[in-house]
């Protein structure tokens, strides 16, 4: 499937108020969203293995099974939004990924709103302060890290805002267009003044592994 996406950032000081404003504007409270992400290099492409977790000071637990997300480099010729092809697997066999090299390990903690077809996620990222294991086996099998093993990625504490519309068949121009329209209507008109969205450099979301 394809995804049309827009992004923004919000300072930590504004985060609480923003959530309340969005809850009022959208008419529903957000849902918690906390996932552990392990990025592996499989066939020169980065696969994002993630699962829902509950991070605690002591022992963290996983609250779901591992899923995989394989995104392609966002397509060119789309200056107004990020448009990329994404494949998602609702569950994986650990054995498929065990021996693959780990390139990243982080935790996403945030909230999610849904309005129509638009999924709005507001989250902050935690990196680990220990070196990455070489293969993913141990990470896939162990429980998630505890809060003491994590550190803020962004020292300012700013949150990332992500607005996404998914399309089953993105090659059909009609649906791609509809998705774009709905995303813009939500992000640029409905949330005007609340959040100002931007289109990042598509190469910032390049999943191709460089080098030999």
């Amino acid at each position, binding site marked *: 499937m394809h995804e049309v996406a827009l992004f923004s950032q919000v300072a930590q000081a504004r985060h*609480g108020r923003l959530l309340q404003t969005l809850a009022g504007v959208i008419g529903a409270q957000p849902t918690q969203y906390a996932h552990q992400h392990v990025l592996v290099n499989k066939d020169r492409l*980065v696969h994002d293995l993630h699962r829902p977790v509950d991070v605690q000071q002591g022992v963290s637990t996983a609250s779901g099974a591992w899923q995989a997300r394989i995104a392609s480099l966002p397509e060119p010729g789309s200056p107004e939004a990020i448009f990329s092809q994404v494949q998602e697997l609702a569950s994986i066999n650990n054995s498929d990924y065990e021996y693959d090299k780990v390139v990243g390990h982080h935790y996403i*903690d945030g909230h999610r709103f849904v309005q129509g077809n638009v999924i709005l996620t507001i989250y902050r990222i*935690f990196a680990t302060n220990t070196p990455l294991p070489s293969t993913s086996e141990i990470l896939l099998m162990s429980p998630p890290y505890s809060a003491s093993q994590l550190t803020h990625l962004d020292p300012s504490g700013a949150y990332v805002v992500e607005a996404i519309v998914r399309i089953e068949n993105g090659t059909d121009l009609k649906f791609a267009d509809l998705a774009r329209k709905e995303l813009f209507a939500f992000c640029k008109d409905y949330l005007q003044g609340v959040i100002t969205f931007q289109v990042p450099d598509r190469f*910032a979301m390049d999943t191709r592994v460089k080098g030999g």
Partner: protein
Amino acid sequence: MSLTQADIRSFEQVRQRLVTTQQSLDLLRSKLINPQNREELDPLPPWPSLQESANSFVRNMDDLQKIMESSQELFKTAHAYPHATFPGTTFEGNLILARLLRKRVEPDVEAWIKEHTEDTKVQQWDQHRETGLQQDEQQRLLTYAGEENARVLEELVTKGAMDFDYTLAEYEEGVGKVRTGLKRKLPKKLRNPAADEDEDDEDDEDEEDSEDEDEEMEDVMPEAPVKLSALNDVKGLIPGAYAMRLDDVLKFVTMGARPT
């Protein structure tokens, strides 16, 4: 060196702004000197219309200033030069040419500019830019406004404008049908004069209501979306730090690339 499209556009914008500014100024002027204001009432037109004209003029000036500022370099260095085919030798041609190419302002305008840009005046303006009005002028305004407000309000109250709970239209339609948005039944406090005459006022309020006048209102707190979590205690925050660039953040979550 010829003008680019952008330059031409800037000039055009300034020209349009000047035209609208001139028009709004003319409008304001005509309102003030127009003899059609009846002399018995007031030599001035109603103040809302004056206010509107003044505001639109200020807005125009503001826009004009913005446009001038944005193309400062262009306007400072642009130089008008007549085309070879312009009839500069005829009497009329010469007149027009002189008027168009003139750079020096008229003497009384020059004097006015000089007066208002001398250092002491500028300093005064800078000092009072925040407040606008002087302290004593502000005080006078507030006192006047307070008295005027009290007078208007008193008149309304004595004429009974505050006695009615519903509008005339609502009384005609029937008070029982009014959508108040209230979810609780309130005790009937004041009997409104109009209700006595209105047959349709079959109240949805209990006449024998013996509840307390001041009901306790329940405070309902919306569920706080930001739950206390262990992640709030994670180290690594630097107060006052700039946010990481969005592209760098995305690079990290997509590829694990640490920002350099």
